[in-house]
């Protein structure tokens, strides 16, 4: 053996869920003092594989070695014993507890509960790696990036040497991402082993030493980051050459469709969510909305679609034949009764856009069940619509009567988007339409949006990946803390500039 011992070795790991094989015969080595990027499309089994390291799942077959010793990790607690810590994509934090309480949760320390001592240790860790959190702040008062910091500190507090981060940058701005990467580099230099799960190529290039690629649950290969490039990695991930360019056709006859003027929205507990927001969404254009998550994107889309009451302002809809209608103060039913077909693909697909336990046909019916005077519902039309959506958008499903909850993320989104565009809308609002989708599904969604744009629909695209926003949208509106930080032309925007605008109004000096 001329090689050093691997910090973690996984050998022939297989894991199935019912009839779905999440991992099949995967072998992987990770060494001390390196950052490994685990790359793969959604559903390729990256998270499942790592969950078996962190004790959430137990492999059906295969072995795990830590520092050369075979181990069995059947619970998160045992994972801690091997100094493995995982930062999940969905934060595992208790909202009503403070940061310090969350960090010491479940620890078997002797003695009384001493939050002050714990807070001191937390501050020390923060100082070492350059974090900034307040140990006595409640989680529900925190921003997403603060919550992520708590997660990382939690793992470090437990003395983890092997850190697994599951898509840590999905919710961060470019600046926050850079800060996180600096911390990770510090840790690597400190001798820690870091595995980062991602599907963003430029991040792999920026942070990792080595890349391992999974596809459809199988191990495909690994290489040094310095010896590869984005195109090669993508091809390995997808299994065939793919074009990474997003189409952006020129708008045809854009005309104002939605005019938002001075919109101010307060949440039910009195917090200002949107402040004096004004913009125009044109037909035949895609308007991108950028911003740190929670900057008012949700409230903005919900206000337009009639789900959110506003304190001030107006939202005017101008129909293709020039009729003006005020949308504020109307609920979704009122809006559709005005004859306006306004489609909305919400962020929470199974919790808002669809009903997980209902089948495809019943979900198609959500929009149309009121049609007709009969006391009873029409079941035939939605069934045919579901068949059409399945065929047109290549939804992979056992059948129309399968509950949508059982479909994979990409197929769920296709069902939702398929239903929303089936009504021939004049406005299409989408929130994080490609979140969690693999490359193929994402490109299908982009082309569907472009198709709507060509049909003269005003498309609003709330996104988180700046690269996508810059390539897809005609105009980009940047939100920062509920205010419009600026509206720029998508064709001439600079990524760093947008990133700055997301954190500071106008992207200039700190004037909050």
């Amino acid at each position, binding site marked *: 053996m001329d090689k050093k011992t691997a910090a973690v070795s996984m050998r022939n790991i297989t894991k199935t*869920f*019912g*009839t779905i094989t999440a991992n099949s015969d995967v072998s992987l080595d990770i060494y001390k003092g390196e950052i490994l990027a685990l790359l793969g499309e959604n559903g390729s089994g990256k998270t499942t594989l790592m969950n078996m390291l962190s004790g959430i799942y*137990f*492999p059906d077959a295969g*072995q795990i070695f830590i520092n050369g*010793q*075979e*181990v*069995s990790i*059947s619970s998160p607690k*045992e994972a801690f*014993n*091997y100094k493995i810590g995982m930062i999940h994509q969905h934060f595992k934090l208790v909202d009503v507890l403070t940061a310090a309480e969350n960090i010491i949760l479940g620890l078997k320390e002797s003695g009384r509960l001493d939050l002050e001592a714990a807070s001191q240790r937390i501050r020390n860790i923060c100082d070492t790696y350059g974090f900034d959190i307040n140990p006595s702040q409640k989680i529900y008062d925190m921003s997403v990036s603060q919550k992520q910091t708590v997660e990382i500190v939690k793992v470090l507090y437990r003395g983890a040497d092997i850190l697994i981060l599951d898509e840590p940058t999905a919710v961060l701005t470019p600046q926050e991402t850079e800060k996180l990467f600096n911390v990770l580099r510090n840790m690597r230099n400190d001798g820690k082993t870091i595995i980062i799960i991602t599907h963003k190529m430029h991040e792999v290039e920026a942070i990792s030493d080595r890349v391992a690629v999974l596809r459809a649950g199988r191990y495909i290969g690994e290489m040094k980051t310095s010896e590869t490039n984005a195109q090669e990695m993508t091809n390995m991930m997808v299994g065939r050459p793919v074009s990474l360019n997003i189409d952006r056709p020129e708008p045809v006859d854009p005309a104002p469709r939605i005019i938002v003027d001075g919109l101010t929205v307060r949440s039910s507990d009195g917090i200002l969510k949107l402040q004096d927001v004004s913009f125009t969404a044109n037909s035949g254009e895609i308007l991108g909305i950028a911003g740190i998550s929670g900057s008012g994107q949700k409230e903005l889309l919900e206000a337009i*679609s*009639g*789900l959110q009451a506003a304190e001030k302002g107006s939202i005017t809809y101008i129909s293709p034949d020039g009729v003006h209608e005020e949308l504020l103060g109307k*609920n*979704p*039913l*009122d809006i*559709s009764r005005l004859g306006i077909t306004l489609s*909305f693909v*919400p962020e*929470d697909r199974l*919790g*808002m*856009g*669809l*009903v*997980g*336990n*209902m089948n495809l046909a*019943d979900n198609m*019916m*959500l*929009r149309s*069940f*009121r049609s007709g005077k*009969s*006391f*009873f*519902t029409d079941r035939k039309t939605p069934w045919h619509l579901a068949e059409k959506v399945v065929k047109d958008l290549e939804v992979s499903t056992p059948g129309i009567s399968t509950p949508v909850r*059982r479909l994979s993320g990409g197929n769920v989104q296709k069902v939702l988007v398929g239903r929303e565009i089936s009504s021939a809308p004049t406005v299409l609002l989408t929130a994080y339409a490609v979140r969690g989708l693999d490359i193929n599904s994402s490109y299908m969604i982009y082309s569907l949006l472009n198709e709507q744009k060509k049909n003269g629909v005003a498309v609003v695209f709330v996104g988180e990946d700046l690269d996508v926003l810059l390539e897809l949208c005609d105009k980009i509106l940047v939100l920062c803390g509920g205010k419009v930080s600026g509206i720029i032309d998508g064709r001439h925007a600079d990524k760093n500039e947008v990133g700055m605008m997301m954190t500071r109004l106008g992207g200039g000096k700190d004037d909050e």
Partner: protein
Amino acid sequence: MNNRTESPLIHITKRKAMAWYKAWGIRLIAVLIALVVCGIITTLMTGDNPIAVYATMWKGAMGTQRRIWALCQGIAMMLCVSLALTPAFRMRYWNLGGEGQILIGCLATTACMILLGGKLPNPLLIALMSVCAIAAGAVWAVIPAFFKAKWNTNETLFTLMMNYVATQLVAYFIIIWEVPKGSGNIGIINQQTEAGWFPVIGGQRYMLNIIIVSILTIVMFVYLRYSKHGYEISVVGESENTARYIGINVPKVIIRTLLLSGAICGLTGLLLVGATDHTLTTSLAGGRGFTAVMVAWLAKFNPLGMVLSSFLIVFLQKGASEISTIFSLNQSFGDILTGIILFFIIGSEFFITYQLHFRHSGKKEA
């Protein structure tokens, strides 16, 4: 930590789906095991042989023609309450206030019979009783629903408390109307005139109830499965956010559904007083408001399945109560047996939803 290589002994996964006949098969097995356990317990308590125990149960429920009719009446009433609760449960609204809603229906019926008996022609009186009882039940159910719709007030406890308020209200009126004074009983209302008594159909005083409930079962099945209201109820139950998103007025659906739920509870009260018992006591609802929760849940809130589950529960109750009588045990023995059987059925749902995998072997089921 030493190095173990074995996997956990038992591994649990969620099933994809199970054919309905298999699911009912598992429930049936659970009931059979429960009956064996009940038989053993009864044998231990009485020293009698287990076969005699089961024979007694069977006789208690189905022994004579009169008993079969009583069984049918029991099933009809249980089914009626279960049907009442079902729309609410489908909406994930835990209406535990069936007991109070029935009692208020009983109270309204009684009030009409006592105050207006003999003053109105009988058909008019019966019509008025029906309207009052149904309205009273609906109002009783809609009070918690209103607060649920407006402020998301916890309905489980609210409806539970409403039961006791109803009980005290009934107790109050029993003292006011008691015959003779100081007896604490109302006795049979309008025994001479039979004013407000429902007509007896086919010589069987339970027949009317059975017919009404049978029709109601089918109507409820169709309502929940095929009507727009039924669809709205399901959507609200699955996700209030989705309901809002597609423009369903959630508070309206909650209130409308609970009006219906309470109205049917009121109807149960009407049938209990007007058609069969012709009297009012605080225990007239007889715990049906609670048992019906379990009946409805066992049938997975499907009205047709509830025919089966209410038969099962009522049969067991009658049988268990016969055992207590014959073997001169306390009447509460029936509750214990019912409880044991329920525990088994509740536990059996696990094997319908989940699958066990044992180490070494592939798939096995308990």
